[in-house]
């Protein structure tokens, strides 16, 4: 479904991501692991068109993504719940969600359905639908961000560290929800520092270190691997 071949991304003279290869098949949950600054977010930004790759090829369902602007990539069916959430803080929860359906703005019925669906996944959002998104707690904001990405009915959803800043209990619920979304037919590419929780729900994973992929394998393989542990706490 999504294939990255030898992709490199540079910021000025600094190579943030170097020659990475990633393959995501339809229906999978794929996780990118690695510490902060290892290159996960850069990879995401490149897939969603916010950054331009310096080399390599990105292909989504047979179409090249390389030079497309971010808004077109959303239309092609890649939704992103970005690092830092990037919500519209002064807009209400519902307005945020509606903006998520921007690419489907003419399909009123569909928007209504998607909205209901998001409220089903996150009942608390329905309660707070008239509150400003910026006034919610971190976990609830994360829900809005995921909900907003869902509203575009993506075929592939990119989730950049959905567990950041969330209390452990909420993290667990978050991952359950992610699994649920996946079961409903959305392919998921996840970046996480929370290796344990992520590997539990993922089919396969890639481990990033210093901008390159040092390890890849099924979740079971990675779960048992000492390198993963090393990558995280240097043990």
């Amino acid at each position: 479904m999504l294939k990255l071949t030898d992709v490199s991304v540079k910021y000025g003279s600094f190579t943030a991501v170097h020659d990475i290869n990633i393959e995501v098949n339809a229906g999978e949950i794929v996780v990118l692991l690695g510490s902060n600054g290892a290159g996960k977010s850069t990879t995401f930004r490149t897939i969603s068109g916010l950054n331009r790759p310096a080399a390599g090829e990105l292909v989504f369902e047979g179409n090249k993504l390389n030079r497309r602007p971010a808004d077109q990539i959303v239309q092609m069916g890649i939704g992103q719940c970005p690092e830092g959430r990037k919500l519209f803080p002064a807009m209400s929860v519902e307005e945020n969600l509606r903006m998520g359906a921007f690419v489907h703005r003419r399909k009123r019925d569909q928007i209504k359905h998607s909205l209901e669906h998001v409220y089903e996944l996150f009942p608390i959002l329905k309660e707070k639908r008239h509150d400003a998104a910026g006034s919610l707690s971190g976990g609830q904001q994360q829900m809005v961000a995921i909900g907003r990405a869902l509203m575009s009915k993506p075929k592939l959803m990119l989730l950049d560290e959905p567990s950041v800043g969330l209390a452990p209990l909420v993290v667990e619920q978050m991952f359950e929800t992610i699994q649920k979304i996946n079961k409903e037919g959305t392919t998921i590419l996840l970046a996480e520092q929370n290796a344990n929780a992520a590997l539990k729900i993922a089919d396969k994973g890639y481990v990033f270190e210093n901008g390159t992929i040092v390890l890849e394998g099924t979740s079971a393989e990675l779960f048992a691997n000492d390198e993963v542990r090393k990558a995280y706490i240097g043990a």
Partner: protein
Amino acid sequence: MIFLETKQLTKRFGGLVAVNNVDFAIEQGKINAIIGPNGAGKSTFFNLISGFHPPTSGQVIFKGQDITKLPSNKIAELGVARTFQTTNLFEQSTVLDNVIVGHRLRTKSTLVDAILRTPRLKREEAQCREKAMEVLEFVDLQHIAHKPVAGLTQEEKKRTAFALALATDPEIVFLDEPAAGVNPDETEGLAELMKKMVNKGITVCLIEHKMQMIMRIADKIMVLNYGEKIAEGKPEEIQNNETVIKAYLGGSASA
């Protein structure tokens, strides 16, 4: 006397508690590291100590003096230096020119001195230049002292930023992700440089994500998670600390 410590340091941004009741003592002459997952409040903690943000509550004590409410330039005068994640250097001028101003706080000449070219100004300029060359030699950049910053590699820029901090004659330097954005072998070089600083008697405190490096060089590590201190100790202790592993790997610490 404790060298530098924070007492119940707390910072709130709106409803979010970025740093929550952190007590931390920095040991003199050692490499102290602060680690933690993304969003744990490390940078905020740094900013509180260096006088960049006022804390919501709590205190920062440096050599027995309460520096909580001092503006950052006063804190610098007391011997506390810091670097930023992004280097913020003046790209158009040379490495040396960038570093010279670092010693400004130890000089007294004023605008009048500048206009009249007084002996004091000349003396102090020479002094600043000397200091700059000295710290450039220390960070091993003397060979490119006259090269414009715009043409430097990321690692060289980091070293220039170190030099600038060192030019203030600090007793302690705070380094905010010194190795972010540099290659693995260059990271090695920066680690060596930090050890060298400590050997020279300058206390180092850093935030870093490159765990292998931290575990190798740090004498003491504090771990933050959700703005709270969850562990503190030597690298070995941290590596085997259940809470820390849980914070990093998540879920039950079975891995």
